[in-house]
């Protein structure tokens, strides 16, 4: 997995609440058997009209936001379907950091599997930072220090220490879990005794 250490970018502000994963990447793009190439279809129905032409007013179609790496957005981002195509599409577009006041659980977890940092801030701070999107000015995110730096200000954010470590080091969590193979094996043996129907195939 790609590491996340720090980032500097003009943020894109999309002030909608409850953005669901259908909106992030609609179903017609879930027919792929690959993880890559979804960026061009990110927010498809907001970005393109019915004929497939770019809607010039939509923020991600405009410069400099089409090159933005940070998305600031409304609460409950990523609700709905579990599709990991949503973070894949964001990543493929170039977005590796999201700032919102809350996320849906499955989406939140999926971000960490793909080197994307989802930051939780309160709504007042989000409004404050979104000004940098309006003014087209860069902000910086530093994961090691857990800080967002904007202008002469900075703000700290919370993150689970284990998730932070995985992002900073780009760790493969399957490899980490496989290190516990012996424990898994003894657990399986315990089940075979206590709940034999689990393996009863």
């Amino acid at each position, binding site marked *: 997995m790609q590491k996340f250490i720090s980032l500097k970018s003009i943020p894109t502000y999309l002030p*909608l*609440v*409850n953005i*669901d994963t*259908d*909106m992030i990447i*609609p*179903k*017609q793009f*879930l*027919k*792929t*058997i*690959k*993880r890559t190439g979804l960026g061009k279809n990110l927010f498809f*129905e907001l970005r393109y009209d*019915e004929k497939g032409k770019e809607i010039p007013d939509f923020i991600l179609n405009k410069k400099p936001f089409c090159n933005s790496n940070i998305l600031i957005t*409304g*609460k*409950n981002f990523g*609700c*709905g*379907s*579990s*599709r*990991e195509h949503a*973070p894949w599409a964001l990543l493929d577009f170039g977005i590796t950091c999201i700032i919102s006041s*809350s*996320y*849906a*659980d*499955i989406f939140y*977890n*999926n971000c960490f*599997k*793909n080197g994307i940092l989802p930051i939780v801030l309160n709504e007042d701070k989000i409004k404050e930072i979104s000004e940098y999107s309006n003014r087209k000015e860069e902000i910086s995110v530093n994961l090691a220090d857990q800080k967002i730096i904007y202008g002469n200000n900075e703000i700290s954010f919370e993150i*689970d*220490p*284990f998730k932070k470590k995985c992002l900073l080091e780009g760790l*493969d*969590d*399957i490899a980490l*879990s*496989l290190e*516990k*193979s012996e*424990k*898994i094996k003894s*657990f*399986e043996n315990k*089940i075979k005794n206590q*709940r*034999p*129907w*689990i*393996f*009863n*195939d």
Partner: protein
Amino acid sequence: MPHTLYDKIWNDHLVHEQDDGTALLFVDRHLIHEVTSPQAFEGLRNSNRTVRQPSLTLAVADHNVPTTDRSKGISDQESKIQVETLEANCKEFGIKLFGMDDKRQGIVHVTGPEQGFTQPGTVIVCGDSHTATHGAFGSLAFGIGTSEVEHVLATQTLVQKKAKNFRINVNGKLPLGVTSKDVILQIIGKIGTAGGTGCVIEYAGDLIRSLSVEQRMTICNMTIEGGARAGLIEPDEKIFNYLKGRPMSPKGETWDKAVEVWSNLNSDNGSHFDKEVSLTAEEIIPMVTWGTSPQDVITIEGKVPNPNTEKDLDKKNSIERSLKYMGLKPDTLAKDIKIDKVFIGSCTNGRIEDLREAAKILKNKKKASHVHAMVVPGSGLVKQQAEQEGLDKIFINSGFEWREPGCSMCLAMNADKLKPEERCASTSNRNFEGRQGRGGRTHLVSPGMAAAAAISGNLDDVRKYQN
């Protein structure tokens, strides 16, 4: 210390726990389908890993399959490749698959319980957010992403942090014509689409206990629409009777031992819930959604909200946006909303009891002439059962199309979709913008309400069609 049902299942599946509370949880049952698994298998191959316990995973193609004549295969090339990729992956890694021509094929959350693969006290996961459905059996069941699917395939475990305990009590008796779909829509309206975020919901109370197994599945199914990944219900005799004799259920002495263990799956008296909400069943009446989030609910007697009465600016904007998308004027009566399509099916309401409920309303009645209506059974076995009971004839005589099983117009990945501005009364679970087709407008309802809408040609009160 007293424990909740969720606490007990969690503790029973702990393989390892780090100091910070991050746990490695054993997964007893893993369901996979064609859309969220190909990249997981590709990942396994790229890192030379194998599937640790192939017999604990069950595969079925559902999201992408055609619901019309299947004899010629899948005409959409991408869908075809995805379904064939699932077949090839299952063959390579030794995983049991119900292929498109198998009568056991169906929506993954209908097939699992039907086969007895779903069992109480287990941890069940699937790369699909509606996995919570299986919680109706007293299992801890939740949706996961594709990277986690790969993790389960490789290790038969998941890295998890414990969620909070949230109990929703529903007591009393439901009035005639009101179903478990109305109960869960009412709950989502009450707690909001993020109300359950970070929680596992236990549904309790005498109304919940009085529900059939399939009605319970409808409630647990839509838990994710309230933001919680998992919803569960204490298992009881109804659950054991449902599972007895199913192909993958335990047999003989093992069955007796299983029932003994399952009978102890409950929340202890005095166990702690971080959050609790209560509803009275008698107060619930048939519900419909008016907007583009499952929390946008009103009763069939109600009217669409007016943004001008909303003081919170974000909420006002959100209502305006939804009304515009839905093509609705503020204060429109629910019963005045004319519909173009009716969809009966999905993992929420595509089981035999759902079809019976709709057929009961449609018997000897015709759908309105301008309405296009279809029924998509949840599985091949549901379809077979419905045909044995003659339900297919009732639907066809009413003017419905009788289709092959799959997810169909719930998410419109196959050819079944709404055209822009078409309005649908749907028994599915999501009314998001574009969910049933770009520009399509969805009103979520129960199967009986969908049948009533088909007859009247507009959203209507199922209670007027009760015999």
